[in-house]
């Protein structure tokens, strides 16, 4: 675990302790399970976002994709009578295809990721609303689907979503930090040209990042759809891409690419949900929700950056004293 991750963990614990002292309900089993469920849901596509951000890209379409795929999943299971495992596979494949489309547009046609996924945000939202005629997609009244409650089940009180998050995070950690592909992601994100000159097929690596991102987002979309049970296409998943980006930035990802860790982004997702919970438990008007979140992220990143700059200065002064020579100064502002 890196120092940055440790700092974030301490922040989560401090905030958690503060909330607990104000309202002991914070640590009630029910509240923990609810928060854990949300962490699981948001963590899934925050990790997904991390894969894209590390290549220096961004995926703004996550929220709309969650709405569109959620609508489709509920509709084909509830209204078209497709068995849910088949619907599950269809939705995941659809997600992967959308990711592939993003990846191809970005790598083959050299479009900026921001533009491609911003258009995705608009298109998917529009298609979701158009598909149901702006009506809420839901399951027919009284219908049950054997096995489908897996997505909302609790095993000994532990929500399946957080268990899945643990599994996905473990795999993602191995892939990003211990595998060749992960190393290529870091290299491509920092210096795509260098990576290409080293014989890395950079388009393949970047494209794969978008496919992974969309695939995980599709998985999260199904969980979200089952969590809400009904999907209103105009509001479902609004701003969720920003939660994911915020979690990644809090977790030490650089929006310029090449920096980040899976532990960091998971901790970022946890902190965001704890803050959300804080707003509810401390009786802060929920309309201030975003304001609280924005302020904490701003202060957190600011402190981290200033601390980084301070340490860089100390390091520089220290090594200058030691060797009598000046090493090349690091970037004046540490990259986020």
């Amino acid at each position, binding site marked *: 675990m890196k120092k940055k991750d440790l700092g974030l963990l301490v922040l989560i614990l401090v905030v958690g302790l503060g909330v607990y002292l104000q309202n002991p309900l914070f640590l009630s089993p029910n509240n923990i399970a609810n928060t854990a469920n949300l962490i699981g849901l948001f963590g899934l596509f925050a990790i997904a976002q991390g894969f894209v951000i590390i290549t220096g890209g961004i995926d703004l379409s996550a929220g709309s994709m969650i709405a569109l795929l959620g609508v489709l999943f509920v509709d084909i299971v509830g209204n078209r009578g497709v068995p849910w495992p088949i619907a599950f596979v269809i939705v995941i494949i659809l997600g992967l295809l959308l990711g592939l489309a993003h990846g191809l547009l970005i790598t083959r046609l050299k479009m900026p990721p921001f533009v491609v996924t911003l258009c995705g945000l608009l298109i998917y939202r529009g298609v979701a609303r158009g598909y149901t005629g702006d009506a809420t997609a839901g399951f027919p009244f009284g219908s049950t689907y054997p096995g489908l409650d897996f997505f909302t089940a609790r095993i000994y009180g532990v929500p399946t979503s957080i268990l899945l998050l643990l599994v996905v995070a473990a795999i993602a950690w*191995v*892939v990003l930090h*211990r*595998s*060749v*592909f992960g*190393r290529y992601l*870091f*290299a491509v*994100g*920092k*210096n795509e*040209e*260098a*990576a290409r*000159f*080293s*014989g*890395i097929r950079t388009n393949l690596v970047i494209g794969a990042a978008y496919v992974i991102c969309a695939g995980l987002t599709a998985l999260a979309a199904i969980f979200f759809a089952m969590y809400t049970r009904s999907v209103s296409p105009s509001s479902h998943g609004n701003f969720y891409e920003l939660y994911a980006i915020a979690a990644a930035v809090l977790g030490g990802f650089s929006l310029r690419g*090449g*920096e980040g860790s899976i532990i960091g982004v998971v901790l970022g997702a946890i902190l965001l949900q704890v803050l959300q919970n804080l707003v509810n438990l401390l009786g802060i008007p929920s309309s201030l929700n975003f304001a609280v979140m924005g302020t904490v992220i701003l202060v957190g990143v600011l402190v981290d950056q200033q601390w980084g700059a301070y340490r860089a200065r100390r390091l520089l002064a220290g090594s200058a004293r030691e060797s009598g*020579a000046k*090493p*090349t100064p*690091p970037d004046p502002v540490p990259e986020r």
Partner: protein
Amino acid sequence: MAVLELEDISKQYGAITALTNISLTLEAGQVVGLVGDNGAGKTTLVKIIAGNFHPTSGHIRLNGEPVSLHGPKDARSKGIEIVYQDLALADNLTAAANIFLGRELTLTARTPEEAERPWYRRRRWWLPVPEILDYRGMYKRAGELFMELKSETRPRDLVRRMSGGQRQAVAIARTRLSNPRIVLMDEPTAAISVRQVAEVLSLIRRLRDQGIAIILISHRIPDVFAVCDRLVVLRRGEKVADKNVADSSPEEVTGLITGAIERA
């Protein structure tokens, strides 16, 4: 026998001619300085040899055999390594990670030779895990390479925190990974302090002593005279001189570069 022979290499970008009929031979254990003004075609020529560009016309022969290079990976597999001007390092990674970039040692491919193979020709390719990096193996080998080059660079250090000379050592160590026969260096002394230039020049000599043929592109005439055996001058895409360093002088080279002297 010549390690590398270029015959009448030309390169055009649309209507623009970057190189006209360049011929050049390179012997093992020889350092050839390639000099010329900005836009004279030095980098284009090197990128053709490195497989980045295809020549519009002309032939390349390696050890007497005609070859056609399909990309940098292909060139590398044929024993041609390149140190790029902008160093082509990813400075968010460690020295070792940069040395092995694109040919990482993994738990299924534990040697550089095997790492260069496509996955389906590797031993144990059927192992159903993603290719897991062999950190320890890479740190160890990187440490050995730095030792060979007598550089004090540490494999675990981030390239971001390194001086220009250390970055060069990383870039040069990269080329040693595969026992190349030819190393191309594009302005290795351009971006570093005077003190570190000497360090880099001695790295070049160490490569030469191992029998590697080197093409050194440089703007810095003193560096060329310090390490090169032969020098080739390009002007506006044409070769205007190809002679032993001992028979030339910095004044003559400057004249050839600027055009004050037509040909030599």
